[in-house]
């Protein structure tokens, strides 16, 4: 017999990114299907989750805008997240949250990015504007601002490389090493990454140039460039300090280089 939902029952979809499950509860079957499709490959079956969000949907007829500036702040121990197309709150102690949004995937995508970045900041990890891939059991991150070549290097990846993301890389600390994990946060390729992870071998800052070469980069410049590409949404001094310390720790353990590349497949010959 097919289970049916009464007005008070909510379906739960658990989204697992970086090994961390976040449960989304909704009583709207079409939204449930939408997020299951949007996060295909990242829908988990784990009975326990790090945090749980109740999602209330409002009618699309209400005026909304995803272009409005994002605001992330703390108030009475809760994180308040606000943009034109959603309002959300999350209590990091109780790990309960609430989202009010229209029936679209972009708002919940933004909430998930913010919540993961807040959780990772306390654990020495971060989300970073970067493509990433696994090759020969080792993960490589390719960081850069829009136009630097994240999509290009992802598109050029050889068949033996597993693409983790072409847009937002997930970096988690595990003892004295870092893991790069796949994310469903896609860029121009509009392709969800693989839900797997590997020890991080190197981070490259992308620059297009006349030939393929890996160049050294000083630690202070590397940290500054990394900080520019790490996603942290909140205007919160303590959080900024945590992210800075994470970037410094990362720099002490993971080699960072400049990767100048010609946009063709041969660039992958030097990434091993």
């Amino acid at each position: 017999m097919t289970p049916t939902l009464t007005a008070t029952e909510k379906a739960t979809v658990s989204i697992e990114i970086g090994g961390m499950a976040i449960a989304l509860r909704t009583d709207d079957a079409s939204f449930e299907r939408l997020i299951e499709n949007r996060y295909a490959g990242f829908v988990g079956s784990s009975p326990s989750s790090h945090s749980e969000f109740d999602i209330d949907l409002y009618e699309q007829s209400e005026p909304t805008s995803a272009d409005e500036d994002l605001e992330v702040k703390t108030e009475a121990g809760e994180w308040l997240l606000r943009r034109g197309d959603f309002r959300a709150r999350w209590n990091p102690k109780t790990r309960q949250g609430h989202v009010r949004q229209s029936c679209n995937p972009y708002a919940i995508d933004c909430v998930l990015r913010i919540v993961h970045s807040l959780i990772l900041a306390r654990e020495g990890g971060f989300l970073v504007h970067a493509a990433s891939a696994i090759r020969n059991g080792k993960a490589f991150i390719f960081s850069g601002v829009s136009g630097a070549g994240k999509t290009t290097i992802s598109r050029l990846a050889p068949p033996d490389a597993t693409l983790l993301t072409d847009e937002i890389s997930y970096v988690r600390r595990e003892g004295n090493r870092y893991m790069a994990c796949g994310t469903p946060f896609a860029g121009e390729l509009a392709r969800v990454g693989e839900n797997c992870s590997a020890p991080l071998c190197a981070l490259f800052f992308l620059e297009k140039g006349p030939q393929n070469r890996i160049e050294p980069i000083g630690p202070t410049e590397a940290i500054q460039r990394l900080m520019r590409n790490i996603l942290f949404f909140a205007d919160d001094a303590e959080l900024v300090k945590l992210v800075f310390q994470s970037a410094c720790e990362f720099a002490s353990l993971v080699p960072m280089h400049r990767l100048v590349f010609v946009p063709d497949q041969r660039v992958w010959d030097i990434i091993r």
Partner: protein
Amino acid sequence: MMAEKFIARSKAIAARMIGGEMMVMSAADSTFFTLNDVASTIWQAADGRTPLSEIVDGKVCQEFEVDRERAQRAADRFVDELSQHGILLVSDHPLIDSFLESR
């Protein structure tokens, strides 16, 4: 006679020694500074109680063999720049701990 300057490191910063260089970041506006040896010495001596002139005399001139006038001018420029970003706090009287805690 010029008023004495007292300088203290703001609490709203993150700092770390990386590869022999002191990196300082403002948590307020995410501005980065990489301090050279002289600036690092002043930074580390900025306890809110020692006058800047004493830091220049006792630390900078002693450690870097630079003449006093030049060292004082460089120190003033450094302090002005970092104070504009809220990284260093400057006062004409000693900065007490309770004041620093609030910054």
